[in-house]
């Protein structure tokens, strides 16, 4: 059950992040929109974007699966183990989002993935 939840969290997080990154790159939010008075307008604008709504759906799956995981495992296990998505998402960011992933960034992502694996032990 524990590992099923981890798989569900990682899978839905990867899909949610790719959708969010894709859509937010197309229509990024300006710093001025983060002011408290502008938040409502920003939220209404975000709610009209299909990929973001789909991303929220996947994040909701991830959220409830994470709640279940927290009831089954330690915080110091649950949080790091779900970061297994870092390596997978870096590869997909290069292939799907066409980001320029330099050698230094690959090294950093690999180091983070190793660290996450060690934390999950």
């Amino acid at each position, binding site marked *: 059950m524990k590992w099923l939840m981890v798989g569900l969290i990682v899978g839905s997080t990867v899909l949610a992040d790719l959708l*969010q990154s894709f859509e937010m790159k197309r229509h990024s939010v300006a710093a001025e929109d983060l002011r408290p008075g502008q938040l409502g307008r920003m939220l209404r604008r975000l709610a009209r974007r299909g990929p973001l709504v789909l991303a929220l759906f996947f994040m909701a799956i991830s959220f409830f699966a994470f709640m279940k995981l927290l009831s089954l495992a330690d915080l110091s296990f649950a949080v790091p183990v779900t970061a297994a998505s870092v390596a997978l998402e870096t590869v997909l960011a290069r292939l799907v989002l066409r980001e320029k992933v330099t050698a230094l960034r690959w090294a950093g992502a690999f180091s983070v993935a190793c660290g996450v694996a060690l934390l999950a032990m």
Partner: protein
Amino acid sequence: MAAGQAVADVPIPNPQSATRRVDFKTRLLTAFVVTTNVLGNFAMSWGMKHQAVNLGLSPFAYIRLIFTPWVLLGTALLILWLLSRMTLLGWADLSYVLPVTSIGYVLSAVLGKVFFGEQVTWQRWLGTGFIVVGIIFVGLTAANTTKQEPAR
């Protein structure tokens, strides 16, 4: 003379300082994303550990649990995290945001040890070291490689 002075008084935009300002905003938002994530996870975990609720597959148990104080606080913080992270993803690459915000995993492990007395083995501390090194590497790369910084 006055017109010449007025022209001379107009500050000439310095591209380097503009870049630094943008970088500062990105870093500030990154710090906010990490803080809301760590505190949100902590509040959620605290709430879950102090509720004697057996979570099955029924959605009603989850919904009831969301409205308990600590889980509600955690949920509110995680909503803030979601919105700020979404904004950050518009300003920086996914392959930049993911590793840099991974410091949250380390901080969560530390909070788990300090507040919940969870056992943090040497493997976990070594893992923490790897994550920190990875964050430093990725932090040295450009935040956005796919398009120009948006006007803010």
